[in-house]
């Protein structure tokens, strides 16, 4: 609890000047959307293997320590493992021809169940990895600018694009803030005799529950501070005849086109591989 931020990388941005951080956020978001679509579509192991290579390639490009990224996924993966057990045990096949390995009451382990659950969960892991990598390599401001630029056409339909993106980005930004807040509260309480991560599960939960209420309170205070700060700087989302200018205008470069092209190629490959591969 006391050093929890070391173990959670969600929402962090590591500005290490790698090729991925330097890409235009629009290109990154487009590539991300494409890859997510392709990863969701595929189901065969051969295609999943290609996904793995792609992720490893991205990891190399990002120049982030692999251990750090994996550490950030640890909680998610342990959650997934529990889900996996349920998935396998309660798997019901659409075709009746299941090769049962083990059977007890309503619980069944079958080959199909194992294969299918593995495929689904691998996909989920890859998707989570892509999301973490996007956030690790893109600052929130860039992410907001990119998303806003891409969604701009929707403004014609009367959608408040800027406001929506702003809300989304603030929500994202609050995740690391809340994590630091948990850290602060657990240090503050530990110095006055609360034990964390010790004792039986009941004691652990009780120690945690003492954090929840203050966490909400300080979260609300943060919101108030944030809105005051925005107002003090004359933040106006946008009204008629008003255009916000940007300090950093987005610039589409050759590398961005290349990234997009590679991503398209990969998606094509994945879909094709998914068709032809026998398993």
């Amino acid at each position: 609890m006391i050093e929890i931020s070391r173990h959670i990388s969600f929402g962090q941005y590591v500005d290490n000047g790698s090729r991925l951080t330097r890409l235009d956020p629009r290109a990154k978001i487009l590539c991300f959307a494409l890859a997510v679509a392709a990863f969701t579509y595929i189901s065969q192991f051969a295609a999943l293997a290609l996904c793995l290579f792609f992720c490893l390639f991205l990891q190399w490009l990002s120049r982030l320590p692999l251990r750090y990224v994996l550490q950030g996924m640890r909680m998610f993966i342990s959650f997934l493992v529990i889900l996996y057990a349920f998935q396998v045990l309660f798997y019901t096949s659409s075709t009746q021809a299941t090769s049962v390995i083990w059977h007890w009451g309503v619980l069944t382990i079958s080959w199909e169940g194992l294969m299918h659950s593995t495929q689904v969960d691998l996909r989920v892991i890859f998707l989570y990895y892509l999301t973490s990598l996007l956030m690790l390599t893109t600052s929130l401001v860039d992410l907001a600018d990119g998303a806003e630029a891409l969604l701009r056409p929707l403004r014609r339909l009367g959608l408040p694009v800027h406001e929506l993106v702003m809300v989304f980005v603030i929500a994202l930004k609050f995740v690391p803030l809340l994590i630091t807040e948990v850290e602060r509260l657990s240090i503050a309480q530990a110095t006055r005799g609360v034990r964390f991560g010790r004792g039986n599960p009941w004691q652990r939960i009780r120690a945690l529950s003492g954090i929840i209420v203050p966490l909400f309170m300080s979260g609300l205070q943060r919101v108030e501070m944030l809105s005051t700060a925005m107002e003090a700087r004359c933040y106006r989302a946008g009204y008629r005849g008003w255009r916000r200018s940007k300090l950093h205008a987005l610039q589409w470069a050759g590398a961005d086109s290349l990234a997009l092209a590679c991503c398209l190629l990969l998606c094509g490959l994945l879909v094709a591989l998914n068709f032809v591969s026998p398993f």
Partner: protein
Amino acid sequence: MLFEVKDVYYTRMRGTPFAVEALKGCSLTIPEGKITAIVGPTQAGKSTLLLTLLGLFRPSRGSVLFRGQDIHQAPFDLEALRLRVGIVFQSPEAQLFEETVGKDVSFGPRRKKLAPAQSRHLVQESLEAVGLPYEEFRTRYTASLSGGQKRRVAIAGVLALEPEAILFDEPTAGLDPQGRQELLALLQRLKTEHQLTIVLTSSSLADVAMLADQVIVLHEGRVVLSGSPRTVLAHAEELLALDITLPEITQIALGLRSLWPALRCDVLTLDELEEELVRFLPHAASQETQLSSP
């Protein structure tokens, strides 16, 4: 010795791209019943050191001993240590977590499962010790207090634990001159009346030189100087190079050194400075008598 720190290394955010080595081979001792000041420029690792003393951070190398026992070895009870040694954080916002002043100050006594009457008595005593009337502040929301009041409440919350020692992290930062004097007087009182061991950090020697029994100068996670305030002040030029604010008198003495390079600069009071000057101006003393004689 209350605490002994032996060659401690600690890295903040270890294993992430944000890792910072905050303590690099820090060794020091903190005697019992004295006021120890840990002085260092910003980022020297003072706050990290205090949290390491309480075992909130586990050193990656080296050890921390409390009365000769390693605090990270098996039979040692860290929670008991934290109830016996209190800490007042650098920013009181980081410390308060209950809604009302009364609840926050009584958190410690309630954790210790004291009887309600006893805990109430403690809360009242602690609040009054820091100069906040109990009845008036008991039900105030912590969020509605001023910065200085929050700091007092934070101190009261620690006093209510009835600790044997208190670590203060930059207690005078952000206070007005009067508030600063009051706080330093409180520290002195805690030491003399309650026989508490006090450790405080500061980026300036000005506040602590008169108060501390021992000064430890920290720089980049290492101890560079330590000893009585006088011994440390004798190295005034080195301290200036480290961006540590010196007491006014020392600054004057240092300035006068351009006239008399041999002038001592480990002076704490105006009288001492005068004595020192008289040494260099043999006729000044006689002049003074001449002036005052008619």
